């Protein structure tokens, strides 16, 4: 069996309860390289809690998350030391926040925001770092002339694209996205979605994307998990779940989309 036949990320019986309150319960799935998985549901469905568990920002109270590291060894993420965990985040993982200000350093230039990730993995040559930053700005359709400007001077859509460049520069294999188009105007959203779609396909990234927007899920994802009250209630191919929803709640979600 080749590496590609083995999952990159695996969860088993994953759950989190906050005292008596339930975050999410009994989530099990495998994610393979090149696969985009959308987690959809309304606020309070547990999808954000799940994303935090997967990305080790929160420890589960039940079950586990395993990840196949770059050396091919699959590890239970709970057993990673703090340094190993940080290394994963600096190299093999990306995290795109809904609010770009959370994922960017707003006080340094756009170029430095991208270059910083390279320095963190040991790049030293200034010229090469700048060149790579430039090429990434181009790829996310930011004018290279804006490289020395601070993200404060950028529009919301540009900031979001910069955050994506910052995440992708280290060639990660797995990206977590939390409502990446959430705060943007519709026209800006379309551009960002198109960009994300191409980058994900070209780089063969695995993505876990949390969204309440089924149109975003349809455009970007291969598979969908529908969450309600902390549980996964329906899962399958994205077009299958959206065109042939089986559960009452999924039917409600799908039928609630307003036609344009």
């Amino acid at each position: 069996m080749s590496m590609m036949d083995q999952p990159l990320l695996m969860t088993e019986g994953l759950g989190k309860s906050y005292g008596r309150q339930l975050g999410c319960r009994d989530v099990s799935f495998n994610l393979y390289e090149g696969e985009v998985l959308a987690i959809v549901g309304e606020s309070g469905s547990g999808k954000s809690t799940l994303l935090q568990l997967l990305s080790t920002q929160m420890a589960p109270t039940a079950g586990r998350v395993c990840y196949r590291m770059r050396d091919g060894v699959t590890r239970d993420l709970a057993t990673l030391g703090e340094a190993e965990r940080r290394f994963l985040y600096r190299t093999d993982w990306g995290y795109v926040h809904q609010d770009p200000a959370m994922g960017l350093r707003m006080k340094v230039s756009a170029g430095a925001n991208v270059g910083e990730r390279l320095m963190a993995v040991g790049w030293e040559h200034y010229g090469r770092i700048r060149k790579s930053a430039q090429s990434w700005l181009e790829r996310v359709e930011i004018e290279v002339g804006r490289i020395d400007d601070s993200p404060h001077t950028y529009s919301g859509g540009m900031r979001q694209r910069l955050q994506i460049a910052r995440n992708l520069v280290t060639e990660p294999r797995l990206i977590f996205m939390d409502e990446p188009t959430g705060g943007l105007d519709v026209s800006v959203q379309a551009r960002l979605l198109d960009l994300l779609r191409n980058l994900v396909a070209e780089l063969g990234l695995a993505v876990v994307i949390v969204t309440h927007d089924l149109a975003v899920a349809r455009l970007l994802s291969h598979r969908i998990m529908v969450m309600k009250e902390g549980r996964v209630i329906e899962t399958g191919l994205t077009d299958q779940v959206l065109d042939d929803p089986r559960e009452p709640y999924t039917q409600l979600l799908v039928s609630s989309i307003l036609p344009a």
Partner: protein
Amino acid sequence: MERANTAMLQLKDAAKTFTMHLQGGIRLPVVAGVTFDAHPGECVVLSGPSGAGKSSILKIIFGNYRCDSGRVAVRHQGNVVDIAAAEPRQILDLRKNTIGYVSQFLRAVPRVAALDVVAEPLIVAGVSRDEARERAGALLRRLNIPERLWMLPPSTFSGGEQQRVNIARGFLPDLPLLLLDEPTASLDAANRAVVVALIEEKKRKSVAMVAIVHDDDVREQIADRVVDVTKFAAVA
């Protein structure tokens, strides 16, 4: 029978019912007992009035609708995969390498140029971007889409132009099974003839096809066999 072993596609007692939970759990039976096969190099045309479930059958084969029971066996890289029981990952792989689908309507992505809409399945299958675009352009030209439109998103196109973009996207990759849902519906005579010629070429390349066509003339030209879908009517 010898021939059965060589089928590209074999449906056996496939059935589909929709349960509408928002309408008090009403059950809408679509089809039941769907049984037919399609062999390499032949075009099987599904016939029956609107609402008989023809499009639903294509969607079941493509894995777009879930199959409630029965078997939908497709030859895939030396194995036989039952779509009715396949994992999402397998279905994605089948769509990449084995099954093509020309839907009735193009679901265009905002901002993506027509040329790239057509080239995308080739790129996904590993063909270089330049080569994929070149082949996409050649097919668009053949389908009489003027070159000045290639770099525009098809959402701005007329119905007939969108349908031809959709046809180009479906016909471009060399896949052994092709599903066609009214590919000539909104086309003029000249473009209908192009589509008929494309189907002929696919037959010569041993592609198995399942098609829905309302135009008697086109059906006459492409059908090797007609399967009457009304015999698969599901009873409520």
